[in-house]
């Protein structure tokens, strides 16, 4: 009876695992090309299997993109119970000027190389609280689906481990934190629209560029 149970359960598990593996597929975006990587910035192209195709590649000027990104600010989205009681914090800018100067040219390069099913993922890096073990990371991705520009912020000055295992306890994996959900805002607000395709909020890029004088890089 019990031996039968053992063999039956083993068979069942094998079938279950086989089935799961057979139907399994990549459901998280994955990197296809690394555009640039150094100690300050990492920019790569990611393929998102679930995304509606973008209109990549797209050519943008660095000044134009700087102007767009300067208009963004954000708040961290609190979980529901906390949301009711959380003190309303003023929105913050995503990038400082030095960060903008470092990342924008590479984002422009990435948008020029991306395929329609790819988005441009960025990580802006700095030494972490414990520089030997952690890296301060602001990360997210941008993409263009004409005439809209999408920006998603996933990490804001998050502490990423620099190694795959802990520095002290070599056996314990060091995994980066999960992306958080941030509520983005854009000024001027009249260019912050809900894209009909996909229903996500995005910047009306072309109208914005027509209306706004690009920021000077100087």
């Amino acid at each position, binding site marked *: 009876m*019990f*031996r039968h*149970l*053992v063999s039956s*359960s*083993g068979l069942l*598990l*094998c079938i*279950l*695992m086989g089935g*799961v*593996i057979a139907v*399994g597929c*990549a*459901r*998280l975006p*994955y*990197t296809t090309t690394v555009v640039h990587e150094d100690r300050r910035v990492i920019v790569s192209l990611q393929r998102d299997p679930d995304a509606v195709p973008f209109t990549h590649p797209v050519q943008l000027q660095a000044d134009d993109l700087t102007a767009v990104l*300067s208009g963004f*600010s954000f708040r*961290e989205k609190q979980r529901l119970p906390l949301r009711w009681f959380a003190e309303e914090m*003023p*929105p*913050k*800018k995503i*990038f*400082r*000027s*030095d960060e*903008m100067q470092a990342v924008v040219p590479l984002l422009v390069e990435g948008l020029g190389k991306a395929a329609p099913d790819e988005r441009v993922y960025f990580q802006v890096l*700095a030494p*972490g*609280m*414990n*520089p*030997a*073990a*952690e890296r*301060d990371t602001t990360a997210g991705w941008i993409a263009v689906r004409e005439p809209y520009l999408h920006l998603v912020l996933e990490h*804001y*000055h*998050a*502490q990423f481990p620099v*190694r*795959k*295992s802990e*520095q*002290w*306890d*070599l*056996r*314990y*994996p060091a*995994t*980066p*934190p*999960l992306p958080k959900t941030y509520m983005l805002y854009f000024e001027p607000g009249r260019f912050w629209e809900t894209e009909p395709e996909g229903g996500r909020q995005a910047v009306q890029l072309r109208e914005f560029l027509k209306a706004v004088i690009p*920021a*000077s890089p100087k």
Partner: protein
Amino acid sequence: MGRAASWDSIARPCRLIHGIIVVIGIICTVIPVVSAHAVESGKLIEKDGQYVFVESMDPATRLLLERAYEKGIISQEERDKAIKESETRAYLMQPSFKLWYDRGFNFSMNDNAFLLKIRGRLQLRETTRWRNDAWRNPGDAKNFPELLGVFGDYRANRSDDFASQFNLRRARLLFMGHLLSPDFKYFLQLGFETAENAQTPGSANLLDYYFLSTHFPLFNVQLGQYKVFFNRSQINNTASMQFAERALVMDAFTANGLNRRDIGLTIMNDDEIYPVNYYLGIFNGAGPLFNRYGTYNSEEATAGCPGGQTGGNPFPSPAGCPANTRNLNANFRDEIDKLMYAGRLQWNIMGRPGYGEGDLAYSEMPQMAVGGGLAYNPGINTSTDNAFIGIDLANLNFRRQLATFGNARQLGWGVVNYTTYAFDGVFKYRGFSLQGEWYFKNIERTFKGSPCLQFNAAGACTAVTPQLMGNATGWYVQSGYYLIPRKLEVAARYAYWDPDTNAAGDLVKQVDASLNWFPFGTYDYQLMLTYTNLAMGTGGYAIGRSAPLPTQPPGAVNPSGTVPLDARGGTLIENALRVQLQIFF
């Protein structure tokens, strides 16, 4: 423009008033003194759980300085000098240490020469299990017996059929960090848990305490007490497993044969830099918090003559050995020249899969590694040779370690040398993981021949062991897949263990299935539901538990009784459901 925008968001009106007062002081006193270049600087600080970049200089001060410069009140040199001095002052005034929380409470000097990280880990478990009648009679007297009393008499591990209990399976406190430089690390782990089958509450135990030098990535040196770098399943942390518990076979094939931890030294390279990794270690081979000085034998003053109680020269006593004149039981320290040697070689064929089970990180590229370990641990005394065999006087700590890790069939066979092999492989890709290991332990008995168990009044041997103990082997394979990446995993495992290759009916087979939830996408916080089906054979001969039982002196009754503990055989079956919550903060 970007800077002006950031001022708008940071500078609040209430700070402005304060800033005006400060800037007036600065303009009146500091500015004319030194010339320097202004720098844009600041630092990240942790505030209310968020990391915020804070300018080194008060934003209001900076604003007023800029305005003063724009209006021509001060020159550019004066402005730059004021900013530089203000930042210098802020730097000098700040505390020389920082405190923050990030995967533990962190305390660090600003120059990062010293770091202390304090973490705590709790695994709270509820176990519901159903066992068959064989657990009542005969129970398990061979793999995991209980050793009770001063001499460690055998008791079968028996229980009721049904059990449902809560347990603090792991309660740990960790202190780690670095001294002098980030390349000189330390790690200390205390364990406060009680084993599930323990008869008394647990106390604090020093589990790990080691220092690690990473100054030379090709020759990292770790010394102290820690888990031996030998086989994959033991190197892995119990906080990053796919199941609530290791398979029994994993515990049975540790490097020293006694425990996964030992005291010694390991030289290894940095496995995140080099694709091929080596680990070479030398240890006491006696388990944690212990060394070979604790191992002993019973020998008379005359070398080679077995000891015993005063006037009670034990059997068989070689001709020429004098009669005992005083109590010579267990008073001679031997095997103290022995050490354990352990090595491991690993090839990271693709990526760096590491040792954590499952692909929680959702590897974008395939991760694959194969490895193997070899360990030689000689001179483990499982019983003395003074004919107290089976109810022996060998060090109880050694014997209990053997029983705790499921190797109790090896008890009673005198001094043994362990040579253990392990080969493993792992593959991870996009949430899928597959890993397995194969083990073999060669058990070399230094006391050759069949041990004599019973003697007649004349001292002649009347019964020997019906068979000799063989070696041990086993393997497992386990696989998992994240149904929701980084959040929800399903995993299964099959394990096979033959604890005595010379015995029949002793196989241990184990099937596990687990559903694991990681709410924050890290191993730190997890909820596991693990089902285990275990079938453990009770066959085979085990000294002191199987017939013929050893007796000494002639005609005496074995302390374990006259009926062998395995008089009624059968297969021990257990179905267990373990719900385990881990909080690693």
